[in-house]
């Protein structure tokens, strides 16, 4: 069998720019590895500050990913399927946190959910305070991560073959049955990809968290906040904890690599 002719060779300019792009991303990561105080690395990573921040980060980011799916997937559904006025406006607003500076998100959350905020004052009267609490850190992380689920689910639903649902409907399946047995199984890859991306985004959240939830060890100090604080007192520890964060994020992305490529 003859090989197909190799007509798709990469132009040198593209290859060169691609190499520069890759180097641009890799260089800071490499520099972190080079600069890390490796002899103390273990004691720094296993320090109480780092372990506590790791625990807070894991709890906060997982809950934020869960909430993002719970609230974001239905939003994606509405945007893909429902017909109503202002849908494109709603889509723009819902996706806005992706491009908003996180500190702005934090100020907005304070104005809405702080103990003097529009809704927050009612919560506060009922004995609930989100600011300076782990729940507040989850709220901040969810705010910035949820759009990733919305986008993934909306795209997934749009590419879904609706004839499969129609077929199920003609066979007498109720809407609830179709959702559970037809749509959700077909949507699973996008749902999982959205959830993992949201998790990764929540893991790296900094600006909205420090603005809305503050910075307190064991309660709202996630790994990025611990890195920020350590920079002032112990730059070596900041680098080691940064690498811990890089390792976690790489783990998340590697875990979903197959899902991204499979599509």
């Amino acid at each position, binding site marked *: 069998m003859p090989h197909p002719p190799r007509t798709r060779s*990469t132009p*040198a*300019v593209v*290859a*060169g*720019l691609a*190499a*520069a792009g890759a*180097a641009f991303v890799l260089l800071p990561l490499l520099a972190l590895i080079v600069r890390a105080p490796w002899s103390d690395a273990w004691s720094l990573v296993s320090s109480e500050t780092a372990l506590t921040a790791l625990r807070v980060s894991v709890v906060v980011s997982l809950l934020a990913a869960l909430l993002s799916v719970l609230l974001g997937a239905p939003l994606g559904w509405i945007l893909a399927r429902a017909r109503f006025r202002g849908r494109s406006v709603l889509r723009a607003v819902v996706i806005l946190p992706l491009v908003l500076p996180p500190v702005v998100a934090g100020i907005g959350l*304070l104005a809405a959910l*702080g*103990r*003097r905020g529009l809704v927050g004052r009612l919560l506060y009267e009922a004995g609930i305070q989100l*600011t*300076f609490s782990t729940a507040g850190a989850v709220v901040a992380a969810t705010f910035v991560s949820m759009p990733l689920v919305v986008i993934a689910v909306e795209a997934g639903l749009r590419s879904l073959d609706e004839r499969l649902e129609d077929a199920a409907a003609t066979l007498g399946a109720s809407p609830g049955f179709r959702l559970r047995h037809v749509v959700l199984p077909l949507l699973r890859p996008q749902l999982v990809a959205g959830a993992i991306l949201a998790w990764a985004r929540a893991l790296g959240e900094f600006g909205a968290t*420090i603005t809305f939830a*503050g*910075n*307190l*060890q064991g309660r*709202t*100090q996630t790994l990025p906040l611990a890195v*920020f*604080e350590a*920079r*002032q*007192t112990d*730059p070596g520890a900041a680098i080691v904890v940064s690498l811990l964060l890089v390792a976690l994020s790489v783990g998340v992305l590697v875990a979903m690599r197959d899902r991204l490529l499979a599509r």
Partner: protein
Amino acid sequence: MTRSSIAGTCIILALTACSSAPISGGESSPQASELTVFAGSSLTKGFTELGADFEAAHPGATVTFNFGPSDGLAAQIDSEGGADVFASASQTWMDDVAGKAGITGRTDFVTNELVIITPSDDPAGIGSLDDLASPGVQVVLAAEGVPVGDYAREALTNAKIDGAVLANVVSNAEDDAAVVATIISGEADAGIVYVSDVTAEVAPGVRSVEIPDDVNVIATYPIAIVDGSSNTELAQQWVHFVTTGDGQTRLVGEFGFLPAA
């Protein structure tokens, strides 16, 4: 393969050429002179206004400021340079720059002391420093390592209430500006900042509670010219302006600082 790697090298060279060209080709005209001052964030308001005064008194001079926590500024100067003058809120970080980047003409130019601030409606009923130790009071301090955060902890230790107050801390903020913002918004009950942080703009939004002299901490601010400054003469004039000249008068008279001892 070879061609693509050559292209990559060309691009890297092009980028390097771009970035180095303005620096090596910088022939500054004799009139225009630029001064870059790195200053602790508690100096933001005062220095910004003094900068305008200084520029008016020195035609052609432009003063650019980089405000931030003194520890962060010291780290920037030590690793990246870029400062003609450094004004620090603590001796610690001036020592740090002296030991790494190098400085000349170090002088103490103002002092500052601590004050408690609460939201103007004082939700937790703070009447004295000891009240910060009451159960349930939500206290915000600047983080450890930030001068005002360290001074606040020192004052609490002096008053022997550090344990109880630190248990009430709900957030370790980035710097004094962040503490002020949190208190103005009413999200926390009390914070400890510099007297000079309660500027004319801030004063209506907060309520100040004095810290007794016997436990209060006096912060002494040093200023110095950083080695490698590209404009030593103008840097000296700035230091003179804020240590003995009109700048000193305004810092003490208008911006809440105390004269250096």
